[in-house]
């Protein structure tokens, strides 16, 4: 029979719209407006999952985001199945497919349940105690087995095809929670004109009022009041109401993250709709209206399917029109459960007994229940719930005046409702670093002094009476708007005619029981399977701090962040420690409030949008000519240009020989470029670089080397003097932002008196390097009459001119050791000029080359790459560039540090060359060097290989290395220990080709 537990005429579901869905492959029917949990319960189906450790059968215990048990996977396929969703929050849609988790072979019968029998062997800290030895077993045996047995859902295995949106927002007042307090706060703030965002995690605003058939506000049923308020809020243009939107993280300075689920509830979402949206809201003021959560009671079998929170049963009945059973036993320490009893009684559910832990409950509600003929048992506790996949009976027993428990009596039931009172939901307040204070009267922690501009209102600060909640919310909303700078307006007020007074009772800790209960399974943390015994054991074993007890037992550490369990665990620990609860303290509440998908966090930052992709003006040409690319910082650079079936090695050999024997063309646009201009430009350069700049003539270039103040090489690059007051500085590709930042630092903070301007021009110029003995003959006809002969434009000089009419700064420089030019043209002309040179070079056999060839060519010449030869501990002298350091200057950045004794030590690592015996043997970069091959381990390493290539020009391998006292070791044999063998190398000068530089000066 379908939906046998549906109560006609009750709930906010649409009884005219039946929705079909499957759970573990079985077809069910629910109604539009149901959650997965309410629809299953409407079909009398309580069993929804298996527990984490003991694989106990579990059903929904709550009706909201605090649900620890009913975790399911929704959706199908390797990409689309989302694990660990709370069935109490999954909205039903036509065709929804959900499966249970953590069971084998099936939910009804699960082999893992054998763990329950082994429970006495699985106490708190079991893993720590048991899997210590043998040590090697952890990786290969223990951990894989434990991981397979424990753990809940299975992560999707294929890439997520959905997309996720992201939004920054600013507002005057952010209200978290749209229950009575939140609605009142939003309206009060909204009426003042404040920009308000009201967010609620559920599908429908209204909170507890949607489950409330009793209270009347201004003479009308509470749900109608909700509709009125929502209508007014909708009409206010300054108010935005977000449902299905969870405030999950309260960051510093009132930055609150919201996760809005946009399509999860739809059977057939419009194509292109983002699945979720992550909001980062910067709020001037925050009003927390998160409500309160009912506490479960801790007794043996309190996790049996059919044992639920009383408030949950009320929500299922009044909001979803579902009776959770036919015969209910209620165990309570608070009046609110009596209202649940009356609502159930009205709906035709038999309420067998109300066991009240209090000795003499007496209030209008208690009397109303008695008046309705319900059996009220004062001073009565529950000993145990019996059943396996569904509770079938309970044992109730008298609490005797001496504190002991009397003889039990068995009651037949299929629904056990528990109410241990209410715990204010202080998660967000705690995340905002606000201090919690213990409320003696309520026996719970409530928000104290806030640390940020935030206000708690309503049940989340222990205010429970509806009239007080509305007034509290309205006052908080009005005060928040005023604090955000808006003119104060009268806070709205409402009269509450009929209402209950919940939350005045409550119970903290484990219920008293008869006998020792050595085998009792009374759960504190349902999701992590932590029992009362585990918490007591932790205390017995010496744990005193609640933070340590939490970690040892894992209570409160599951994805529900202890929403239900924290206070009870605290009570049990306090009892075991013999200290009052408020002296034991509370653990930290960590974000997220409820789990958030990785997709929401990644949002657009995936694939091509993960990082900015910097491309040069010549990138498209390189792509068209088959270049293979590599990433260099954020730049995409052509690495080599294979021809036909060439691999990288073959392509690089060909490219190297082409440059040495003819002419090569290389895209150097990624070089960092900074224009340094002003009357004090030369002075500034003198202070920033180790080199001397005063005497560098206009039209000349110089290799510039920059240290940090600690004397270590930071960056290098060729600098050209364009005019007396203007330098064209180049930096390494990756170093440009850091160099400019460092220059700005000194200019702004140390030498603000210097009249100098720094401008990043990296992306203004396309740079085309034309290198090789035939470079001049290719370039000369193109430069509109500019004389680029050796006499007019010698090595390390520059000229301004035009190339095919395009303005150009032409540098005669070389990073290859060959005759070379670097042609700087405005970026927008880069590709056209490149193609003009390409066409002109065809007769000379012009060859495009990439970064890999560039690396080999410069290594043959012993030119360093900052960051490859140097590592932040190399001085200019270490890197073989001591010649660049000016001796004459009184000061430059790093000069004083270079004078420290340690910087002169003869055994510093110095740049050298290495040659292997076998010419084909290419060393591995990063390999270590030692003095003797037979040295005992650990060997003393003398240095490491920093660059290593096969040189086609030389027909053999070459390497650069940083070696302790390296220059004095020239001619020595050192050894490179590799796996299974040792390679002997000879230390040489770091220049392998054209040592005297004859090829440059032509």
């Amino acid at each position: 029979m379908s939906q046998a537990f549906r109560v006609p005429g009750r709930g906010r579901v649409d009884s005219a719209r039946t929705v079909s869905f499957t759970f573990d492959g079985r077809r069910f029917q629910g109604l539009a407006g149901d959650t997965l949990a309410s629809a299953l319960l409407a079909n009398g189906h309580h069993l929804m999952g298996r527990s984490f450790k003991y694989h106990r059968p579990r059903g929904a215990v709550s009706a909201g985001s605090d649900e620890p048990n009913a975790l399911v996977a929704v959706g199908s396929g390797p990409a689309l199945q989302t694990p660990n969703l709370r069935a109490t929050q999954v909205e039903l849609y036509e065709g929804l497919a959900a499966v249970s988790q953590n069971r084998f072979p099936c939910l009804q019968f699960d082999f893992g349940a054998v763990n329950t029998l082994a429970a006495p062997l699985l106490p708190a800290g079991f893993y720590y105690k048991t899997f210590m030895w043998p040590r090697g077993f952890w990786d290969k045996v223990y951990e894989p087995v434990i991981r397979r047995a424990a753990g809940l859902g299975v992560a999707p295995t294929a890439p997520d095809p959905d997309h996720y949106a992201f939004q920054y927002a600013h507002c005057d007042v952010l209200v978290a929670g749209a229950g009575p307090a939140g609605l009142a706060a939003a309206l009060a703030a909204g009426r003042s004109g404040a920009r308000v965002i009201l967010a609620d995690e559920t599908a429908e605003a209204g909170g507890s009022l949607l489950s409330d058939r009793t209270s009347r506000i201004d003479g009308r049923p509470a749900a109608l009041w909700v509709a009125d308020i929502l209508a007014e809020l909708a009409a206010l243009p300054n108010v935005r109401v977000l449902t299905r939107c969870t405030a999950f993280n309260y960051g510093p300075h009132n930055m609150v993250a919201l996760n809005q689920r946009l399509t999860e509830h739809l059977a057939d979402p419009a194509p292109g709709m983002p699945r979720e949206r992550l909001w980062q809201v910067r709020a001037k003021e925050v009003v927390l209206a998160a409500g309160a959560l009912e506490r479960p009671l801790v007794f043996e079998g309190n996790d049996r399917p059919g044992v639920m929170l009383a408030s949950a049963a009320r929500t299922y009945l009044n909001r979803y029109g579902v009776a959770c059973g036919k015969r209910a036993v209620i165990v309570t320490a608070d009046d609110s459960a009596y209202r649940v009893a009356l609502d159930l009684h009205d709906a035709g559910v038999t309420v067998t007994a109300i066991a009240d832990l209090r000795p003499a409950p007496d209030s209008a509600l208690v009397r109303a229940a008695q008046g309705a003929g319900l059996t009220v048992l004062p001073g009565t506790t529950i000993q145990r719930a019996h059943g396996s996949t569904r509770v079938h009976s309970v044992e109730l027993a008298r609490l005797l005046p001496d504190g002991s428990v009397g003889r039990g009596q068995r009651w037949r039931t299929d629904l056990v409702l528990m109410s241990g009172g209410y715990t204010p939901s202080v998660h967000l307040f705690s995340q905002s670093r606000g201090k919690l204070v213990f409320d003696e009267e309520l026996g719970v922690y409530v928000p104290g002094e806030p640390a940020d501009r935030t206000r708690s209102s309503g049940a989340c600060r222990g205010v429970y009476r509806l009239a007080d909640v509305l007034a509290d919310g309205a006052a908080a909303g009005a005060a928040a708007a005023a604090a955000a700078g808006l003119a104060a307006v009268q806070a709205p007020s409402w009269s509450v005619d009929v209402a209950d007074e919940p939350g005045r009772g409550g119970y903290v800790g484990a219920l008293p029981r008869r006998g020792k209960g050595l085998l009792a399974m009374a759960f504190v943390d349902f999701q992590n399977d932590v029992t009362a015994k585990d918490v007591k054991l932790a205390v017995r074993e010496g744990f005193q701090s609640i933070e340590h007890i939490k970690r040892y037992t894992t209570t409160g550490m599951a994805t529900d962040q202890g929403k239900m369990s924290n206070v009870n665990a605290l009570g049990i620990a306090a009892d075991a420690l013999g200290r009052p609860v408020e002296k034991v303290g509370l653990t930290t509440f960590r974000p997220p409030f409820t789990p958030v998908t990785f997709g929401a966090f990644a949002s657009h930052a995936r694939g091509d949008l993960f990082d900015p992709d910097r491309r040069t003006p010549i990138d498209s040409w390189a792509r068209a000519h088959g270049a293979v690319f590599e990433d260099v910082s954020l730049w995409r650079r052509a690495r080599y240009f294979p021809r036909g079936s060439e691999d990288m090695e073959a392509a690089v050999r060909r490219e190297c020989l082409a440059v040495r024997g003819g002419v090569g063309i290389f895209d150097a646009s990624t070089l960092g470029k900074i224009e340094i201009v002003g009357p004090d430009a030369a002075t500034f350069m003198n202070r920033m670089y180790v080199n001397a700049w005063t005497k560098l003539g206009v039209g000349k270039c110089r290799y510039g080397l920059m240290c940090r103040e600690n004397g270590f090489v930071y960056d290098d690059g060729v600098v050209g003097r364009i005019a007396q007051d203007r330098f064209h500085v180049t930096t390494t590709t990756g170093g440009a932002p850091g160099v400019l930042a460092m220059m700005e630092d000194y200019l702004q903070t140390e030498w603000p008196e210097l009249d100098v301007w720094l401008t990043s021009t990296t992306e203004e110029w396309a740079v085309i390097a034309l290198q090789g003995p035939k470079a001049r003959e290719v370039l000369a006809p193109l430069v509109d009459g500019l004389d680029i002969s050796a006499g007019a434009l010698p090595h390390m000089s520059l000229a301004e001119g035009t190339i095919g009419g395009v303005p150009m700064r032409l540098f005669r420089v070389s990073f290859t050791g060959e005759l070379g030019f670097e042609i700087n043209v405005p970026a927008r002309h880069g590709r056209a000029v490149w193609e003009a040179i390409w066409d002109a070079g065809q007769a000379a056999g012009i060859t495009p080359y990439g970064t890999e060839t560039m690396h080999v060519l410069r290594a043959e010449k012993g030119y360093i790459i900052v960051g490859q030869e140097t590592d932040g501990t190399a001085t200019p002298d270490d890197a073989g560039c001591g010649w660049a350091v000016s001796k004459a200057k009184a000061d430059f950045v790093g000069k004083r540090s270079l004078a420290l004794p340690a910087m002169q030590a003869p055994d510093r690592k110095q740049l050298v060359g290495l040659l292997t015996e076998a010419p084909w043997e290419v060393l591995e970069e990063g390999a270590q060097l030692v003095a003797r091959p037979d040295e005992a381990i650990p060997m003393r390493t003398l240095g490491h290989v920093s660059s290593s290539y096969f040189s086609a020009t030389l027909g053999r391998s070459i390497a650069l290395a940083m070696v302790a006292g390296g220059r004095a070791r020239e001619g020595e044999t050192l050894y490179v220990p590799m796996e299974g063998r040792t390679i002997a190398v000879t230390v040489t000068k770091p220049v392998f080709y054209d040592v005297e530089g004859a090829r440059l000066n032509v």
Partner: protein
Amino acid sequence: MLLIRCPYCGDRAEIEFANGGEAHIARPADPMTQTDEEWAQYLYMRDNPKGLIAERWRHAHGCNRFFNALRDTRTDRFVTTYEMGQPRPEIDAAAAAEAAR
């Protein structure tokens, strides 16, 4: 995410800024006259207070200007930000207590 007031641009999110370490450490006018100990002190020794720290920030993804800030290291609360070259402002007890809260 912290909200930081650039003295030139106003309140901006933390991701626009780069922290530049402790403020009010002037580079010696003539480093070569410093002893090794003095120079090491200047180079490496920094306060690590539990409480108010004067530190440099750069509005890296904004105006790119350096400025100084007073921040409480316990709470990340900024008391004030001020332009380079200004002396460290005197803070009254009430403002310091507010920052520590």
